[in-house]
């Protein structure tokens, strides 16, 4: 019939094309496709970073994959499509909550906005291990695996104080209002300086903002105000490290003012080889990914896990930067997607 064929031809085409397409995609998805479809007890764990393009997360991925291999579980690595979009990260948690997953490892973009989805997951019987940054609801999570940022800040403070000969004036350049991990680093830094009575803090109330651009502006302003007094500078994150380095170079203070940062980048490592930086506090993203997955596996197997697990903090200095342990942290292994 004309009527039927006219209506049906495009219809069947439309019906079939997406099905084939989706099946194709199902094949593209992670190694699940070759696993036996039923009766398999292999645990499936979703690992959700804050983003997927930053180097830090690629190292976390490497560690998570290492743990997956060691404990014979399957991980699904999925970050928000738009870096740092809360909405997208909430959606991912919710999708996995309904999606045949045994547990979730999550690095929350916001300590507040992700509370509800994590509670929802718990109500659905899916536990969450939080890694990297805290969540404002310790009751709903199995464990929190992260750098001890307060200790990292203290290590940075000690390193800077020693480099300055335990006396002089310092500037603390803060990161961003409301960012929990960096605030702990700032607190730790100031706490460490209490042991050095001859060190005076010139400025500790300036925030760099989240980009290298804004960091450079704020750093330049700070150095302009304190150029004749400052002996040491501490910055609490990678972008403001790069901004401050630029400002120091511009003011021709690089190498004269002692400078300690947090998290490496090629520019900062380069500065350290030229003795323009006296230290970089390091985290261990590879171990973080590894421990997040390992902790989830242990929790799912009914073992008792610690509520707070530290992944280690280290300081690289011009003296130790070529040792294998520190080199591994300055250039952490990465997993490409």
């Amino acid at each position, binding site marked *: 019939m004309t009527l039927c064929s006219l209506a049906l031809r495009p219809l069947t085409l439309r019906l079939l094309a997406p*099905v084939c397409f989706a099946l194709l995609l199902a094949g593209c998805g992670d190694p699940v496709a070759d696993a036996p479809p039923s009766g398999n007890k292999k645990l499936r764990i979703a690992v959700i970073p804050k983003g997927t393009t930053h180097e830090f997360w690629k190292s976390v991925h490497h560690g998570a994959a290492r743990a997956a291999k060691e404990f014979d579980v399957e991980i699904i690595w999925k*970050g928000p499509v738009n870096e740092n979009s809360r909405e997208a990260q909430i959606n991912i948690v919710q999708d996995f909550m309904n999606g045949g997953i045994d547990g979730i490892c999550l690095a929350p973009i*916001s300590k507040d906005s992700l509370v509800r989805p994590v509670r929802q997951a718990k109500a659905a019987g899916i536990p969450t291990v939080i890694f990297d940054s805290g969540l404002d609801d310790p009751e709903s999570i199995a464990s929190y695996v992260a750098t001890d940022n307060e200790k990292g800040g203290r290590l940075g403070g000690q390193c800077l104080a020693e480099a300055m000969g335990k006396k002089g004036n310092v500037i603390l350049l803060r990161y961003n209002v409301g960012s929990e991990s960096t605030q702990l680093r700032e607190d730790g830094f100031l706490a460490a300086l209490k042991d050095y009575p001859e060190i005076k803090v010139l400025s500790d109330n300036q925030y760099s903002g989240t980009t290298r651009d804004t960091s450079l502006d704020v750093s330049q302003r700070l150095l302009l105000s304190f150029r004749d007094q400052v002996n040491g500078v501490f910055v609490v994150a990678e972008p403001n490290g790069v901004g401050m380095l630029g400002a120091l170079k511009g003011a021709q203070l690089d190498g004269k003012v002692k400078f300690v940062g947090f998290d490496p980048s090629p520019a900062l490592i380069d500065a350290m080889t030229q003795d323009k930086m006296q230290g970089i506090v390091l985290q261990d993203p590879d171990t973080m990914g590894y421990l997040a997955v390992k902790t989830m596996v242990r929790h799912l197997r009914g073992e008792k896990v610690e509520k707070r697990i530290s992944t280690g903090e280290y300081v690289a200095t011009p003296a130790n930067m070529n040792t294998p342990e520190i080199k591994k942290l300055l250039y952490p292994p990465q997993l490409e997607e």
Partner: protein
Amino acid sequence: MSEAATPNSAHTSGRRRLQAILTALGPLLALVVVLIAFGIADKYQRGDRAAFLSVNNIRNISEQTVVVAMAALGMTIIIIAGGIDLAAGTALALASTTLAWCLKNDYGVAVGLVAALGVGALTGLINGTLTSLLGVVPFIITLGTMTIYQGVAKLIANETTVQPAFAQVPEWLPNLTFSPVKPQWLIYPLLPNFSTSVWIVAAVAVLMAAMLKYTIFGRYIFAVGSNEATARLCGINVRLVKIGVYTLAGLFVGAAGILQFTRLTSGDPTGGVGLELKIIAAVVIGGGSLSGGRGSILGTIAGAAIMVVIASGCNILGISNSIQDIVIGTIIIAAVTLDQFRQRRLAS
């Protein structure tokens, strides 16, 4: 047999009607097909652990659709009237930031909601007035206001995220967009127990569809979008209609901002960047024509849901973000191309 050769005129008109119905339901049909396709892929990949077509995931998808769907209702009438609004995303974030700011500074939730809706409507009023009075195309006007609204939002938020304390956000507000754990069904197995926001969007959508079909304003919108000069010659005050359309759409953007806040429980002044493209894509996938005069409420809702289904499906299947971006782009182009083929056939 070719179309023209059909001798029976009753037969022809019957076929026309069937085609018209299929056209109207096209996006909805596409939604069902995409749902089933991912359901099959999920089943194929994970066997008896498949959960894509479970009632909980359907409810989850509906929750994730409401923000874009609400804003897209407004965008639908703008596009029918032959306009475009690139500022919808940042205006949405501005409304949501306003609500967060009101809560944080203890003005209370009632003031916050009214302020968010008011700010939304105001952004629309500005878009509409500038477009009408300056005679500059809306693409350029809203490209400008897009940045302006983002700037205002950052100003209100003091360039950071506005985070009201837990006690300052009444419990019912975030619960609007979180599906109740139990019961899962209202009427088993026909009607899942959706979150309140889904019902709100559904109710508003019905009102909008009725407005477009049965009121004079609704017919004016189509007239202006189909042929502005003719509409003017017919005595329609085109400027006034345009200002009305943008303002009404702004109100929807404000409502969408409220819904975004209920999901994030914080106001992120940059949280709307890129959202305008999703909103426009929802309308276009739903059969709206960027040259004006065509678009449907049902299609828009289906269009918004299709994008969420694809994103959700890609998440569950473990497809990487790079592939997911490519898939969504491909489907937008495919959907619109298919729709144009259908329209051309219908016209001939």
